[in-house]
């Protein structure tokens, strides 16, 4: 659907009589995860509605915050009304108090800033959120500190100018320039629409007055350094903390992976020399909004920067996650981990 059609549909659904949808809230707390940009949304009780990109078109984003027959019935009515042009996901409700392995912990405002926190740039008319991977220091001037994440999280796929604001939480989680400004876009590695990419990486220059914890990773302990994935013991366990799925555990299914074609707004971009990870048990390792997460091994050494994923494949059929090798990221940006 065209953007204007989806927006009109959303307004129409939000004006459905109270008897059908229980109640309508004018809250703009669209607690939805997606690295893809979604327009600000309002909520029907138990359901949030927004707009999500679907290739070059748009779909109605339906985010279920509760379970139950009423929510299911409303979702099916919305699906039918939208002629199937919907993207439905269950996201649950955010708890006020959340443990440091849960997504809610990372979607909240965090001071000191923590590895795994929700961050984004600020775009008029759009809200988004990705993940703050870790903290880095410039090799040439170690007093400079930055927040490592992806280009597509804070540089808008090359579209933002150096100096553009970076907020925590991301705007999708309610972050605002007035209360959430933590830094500004510093160096980023341009994404190439043709040719080969190796990293999707950017740094947000951290403002001096913002407290941060450079080492703590979920409830696992402190970041200890970095390691080359090629030197890890085979079948190593890995972890990440991210804005959407919180703390997750996985295993490396491939490395030195070439010709990984990833869908961006810029087109399908090619990445070489990538790491592939699957979730353990019956869970995916990541989901949309986890972009920028730092991936660590079982000794809490950084091995990769999460940037992409899919919903198919892997031995548990829960999809696969892709990461840039951390040494390539740090070398490209000329920074070191801040420990």
């Amino acid at each position, binding site marked *: 659907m065209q953007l204007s059609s989806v927006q009109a549909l959303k307004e129409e659904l939000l004006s459905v009589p109270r008897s059908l949808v229980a109640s309508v809230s004018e809250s703009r707390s669209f607690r939805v995860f997606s*690295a*893809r940009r979604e327009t600000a949304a309002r909520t029907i009780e138990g359901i949030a509605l927004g707009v999500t990109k679907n290739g070059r078109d748009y779909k109605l984003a339906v985010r279920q915050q509760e379970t139950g027959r009423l929510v299911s019935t409303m979702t099916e009515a919305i699906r039918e009304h939208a002629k199937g042009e919907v993207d439905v996901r269950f996201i649950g409700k955010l708890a006020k108090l959340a443990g440091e392995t849960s997504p809610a912990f990372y979607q909240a405002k965090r001071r000191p800033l923590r590895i795994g926190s929700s961050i984004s740039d600020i775009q008029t008319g759009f809200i988004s959120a*990705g993940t703050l991977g870790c903290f880095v220091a410039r090799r040439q001037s170690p007093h400079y500190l930055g927040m490592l994440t*992806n280009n*597509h999280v804070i540089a808008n796929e090359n579209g933002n100018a150096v100096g553009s604001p970076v907020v925590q939480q991301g705007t999708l989680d309610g972050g605002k320039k007035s209360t959430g400004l933590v830094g500004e876009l510093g160096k980023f590695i341009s994404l190439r629409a043709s040719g080969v990419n190796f990293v*999707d990486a950017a740094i947000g220059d951290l403002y001096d007055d913002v407290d941060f914890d450079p080492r703590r990773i979920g409830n696992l302990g402190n970041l200890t350094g970095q390691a080359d994935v*090629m030197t890890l013991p*085979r*079948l190593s366990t890995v972890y990440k903390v991210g804005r959407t799925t919180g703390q997750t555990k996985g295993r*490396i*299914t*491939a*490395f*030195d*992976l*070439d*010709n*990984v*074609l*990833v*869908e*961006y707004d810029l087109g399908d971009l090619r990445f070489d020399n*990538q790491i*592939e990870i699957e979730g353990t048990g019956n869970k995916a390792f*990541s*989901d*949309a*909004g*986890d*972009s920028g997460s730092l991936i660590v091994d079982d000794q809490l050494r950084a091995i990769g920067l*999460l*940037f*992409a*994923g*899919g*919903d*198919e*494949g*892997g031995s548990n059929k829960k*999809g*696969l*996650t*892709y990461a840039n090798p951390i040494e390539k990221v740090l070398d490209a940006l000329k920074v070191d981990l801040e420990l």
Partner: protein
Amino acid sequence: MSDGTDLKTAQAAKPKAYQVFRKLVGEVAVGITPLDDGKYGLKVNLTKAPEKGVQLPKQIEGVPVKVDVVGKIRKR
């Protein structure tokens, strides 16, 4: 999957694997996968299942191949 090989042998077989699979099924991603036996094989990722009747090789230059249908990959 047959027994794995050492890392260098697996890496050397990557270009050939790309050529062979690309002819059979179109664009693929090719990498190294660690195996249970402590050695390495090739991982070949397809975006969709191959057409009926297409026979995919189980090894390339003696290196075992693990094929996975991974669908569309998107920025996260």
